[in-house]
């Protein structure tokens, strides 16, 4: 009997029992698709987090006051910010930007927009936070020195206030003061819930004059000279701050220092844990799928063993029987697995729970390999055992 004829027998065998074949393929399909998709979701979210955080600027350190209405002499001030610009005590600091933040309503030509952040700061802030200009220019050191009322606005603000109009050169009102828009920031990916495009940035002095007052700063944004100098810069800052704010040894500091690479690290760790967790869930679904396949295949062993008994009694050689049954198992598991990969690839084109999945090639290989192996083993093993029985024993098998 030629291989092609045996293959034809196998195809007939698969189609003779449509429900069983469909269920087996479905089991493999679900297992394979689940593994690939879940791993892709984990991978996708990890990638999203990484790109969000690197958009924040990995060299930046943020100093925030933890002083809650206590004595004002422990709050952050422009003097403290200036003190951080110290080439001898803090050689790893590239720039320091004092930040005041206010909220308010921007008005242009009768249109209102409630802005989530109106930031007053120095020119170095844009670079430290990785903002780039889309249109127009950023404000200059001279603008800051003279407290000129100029501002750059985020994409969201530009869209809300200036529909179809070029915002550059236009004047907006905020808190009774007029600000001239000199530039529009390029779109930036948002990290977390806050829209990082819904903001306006203006010279520190101008914002203090009009909105925030000359009190304490909201935060100080420090840029380190390089990503690997962040920790050093952080220690230098801490030393200066402790001195300035007179923190005794072992006392709790009235400020908090955060850096983006720390954030990146913990977030990446979280994302990795997430991927591992999803992988485990996927592995379990593959296992369950595998048990399903095994179950279906074993349930039919009795029937198939009898059938093998009949075939042997009619003079089928062992080799022919084995080839047929292995071919059947291969057809089932390859078709099921292939469809699973197809569905996973299609599914990965859509966002799943807000994450754009990114398929990991090794997960495809693994999922397909495991399911085909399970299919082949549990299709092949009982057949090989039945084929070596005496026909009468195979016929009597229960």
């Amino acid at each position, binding site marked *: 009997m030629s291989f092609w004829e045996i293959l034809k027998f196998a195809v007939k065998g698969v189609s003779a029992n449509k429900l069983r074949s469909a269920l087996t393929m479905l089991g493999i399909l679900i297992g394979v698709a689940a593994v690939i998709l879940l791993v892709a979701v984990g991978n996708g979210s990890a990638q999203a987090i990484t790109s969000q955080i690197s958009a924040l600027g990995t060299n930046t350190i943020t100093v925030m006051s933890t002083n809650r209405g206590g004595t004002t002499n422990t709050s952050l001030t422009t003097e403290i910010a200036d003190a951080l610009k110290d080439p001898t005590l803090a050689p790893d600091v590239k720039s320091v930007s004092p930040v005041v933040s206010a909220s308010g309503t921007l008005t242009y030509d009768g249109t209102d927009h409630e802005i989530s952040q109106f930031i007053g700061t120095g020119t170095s802030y844009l670079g430290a936070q990785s903002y780039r200009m889309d249109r127009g220019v950023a404000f200059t050191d001279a603008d800051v020195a003279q407290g000129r009322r100029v501002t750059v606005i985020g994409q969201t603000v530009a869209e809300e206030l200036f529909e179809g109009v070029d915002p550059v050169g236009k004047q907006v009102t905020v808190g009774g003061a007029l600000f001239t828009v000199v530039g529009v920031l390029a779109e930036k990916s948002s990290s977390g819930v806050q829209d990082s495009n819904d903001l306006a940035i203006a010279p520190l002095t101008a914002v203090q004059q009009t909105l925030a007052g000359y009190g304490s700063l909201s935060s100080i944004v420090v840029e380190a000279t390089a990503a690997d100098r962040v920790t050093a810069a952080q220690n230098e800052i801490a030393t200066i701050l402790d001195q300035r704010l007179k923190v005794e040894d072992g006392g709790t500091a009235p400020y908090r220092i955060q850096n983006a690479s720390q954030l990146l690290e913990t977030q990446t760790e979280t994302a990795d844990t997430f991927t591992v967790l999803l992988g485990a869930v996927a592995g379990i679904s593959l296992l369950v799928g595998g048990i399903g396949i095994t179950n279906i295949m074993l349930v039919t062993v009795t029937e198939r063993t009898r*059938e093998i008994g*009949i075939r*042997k*009694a009619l*003079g*089928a*050689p*062992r080799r022919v029987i084995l080839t047929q049954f292995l071919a059947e198992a291969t057809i089932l598991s390859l078709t099921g697995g292939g469809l699973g990969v197809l569905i996973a690839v299609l599914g990965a084109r859509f966002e799943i729970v807000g994450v754009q999945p990114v398929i990991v090639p090794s997960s495809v290989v693994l999922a397909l390999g495991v399911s085909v192996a399970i299919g082949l083993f549990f299709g092949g093993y009982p057949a090989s055992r039945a084929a070596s029985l005496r026909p009468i024993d195979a016929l009597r098998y229960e």
Partner: protein
Amino acid sequence: MTTAVMNRMTETKPALEVQQVRKVYGEGEATVHALAGVSLTVDRGDYVAIMGSSGSGKSTLMNILGCLDIPSTGRYLLDGVDVSRLSDKQLALVRNRLIGFIFQSFNLIPRTTALANVELPLAYAGVKPAERRKRALASLDMVGLADRAGHEPNQLSGGQQQRVAVARALVTEPALLLADEPTGNLDSRSTEDVLKIFDDLNAQNRTIVLITHEAEVGARAKRLIRLFDGQVRSDERNKR
């Protein structure tokens, strides 16, 4: 090896030779001696009917004759060749080319048409699909089931299934036909048809061994063997 067996067929060796065969099932208290020392010789071209009460070991003997089972002790020679010496591959060839076996319980392959069932032994013999189909249809026609070729076993009556099993055993034109109650589910007309086929085959010098409970069927054979409790009780030639 087939050629060896085939060559011997032209010699005057007996077709079947069973020597002191015993078949024991189970152990201890539950031991059953299905065959308790059976010896018999069947010559080529003979037509033997085996009768005996239920449980007397007829099917057990038949399975051994058909190379589907092996005796616990004793020898079984098929055309002078000791079957226990044959390899798995050689046994497959013997079952396929030499023997046509009709099971007491039909043993058709489920969810497979009558035609495909009958074609199966030819497929394993390497016959080409077109030729296979032609011969299978002819064989089905012989048992009067040409119009049921496309039916699956569960769409056939018991008697029809039995006739498909007969067609499947005859399709390879075996030199040895072993039939375990081939007319057990048939009405008198179908029984007559099947027996007519057997008579014709026997006239072509093919060896036939059949098991039956019906005296008329037993009377059609040339020789009648009666089994009782796993032993041959009587063995006589029918007068014609």
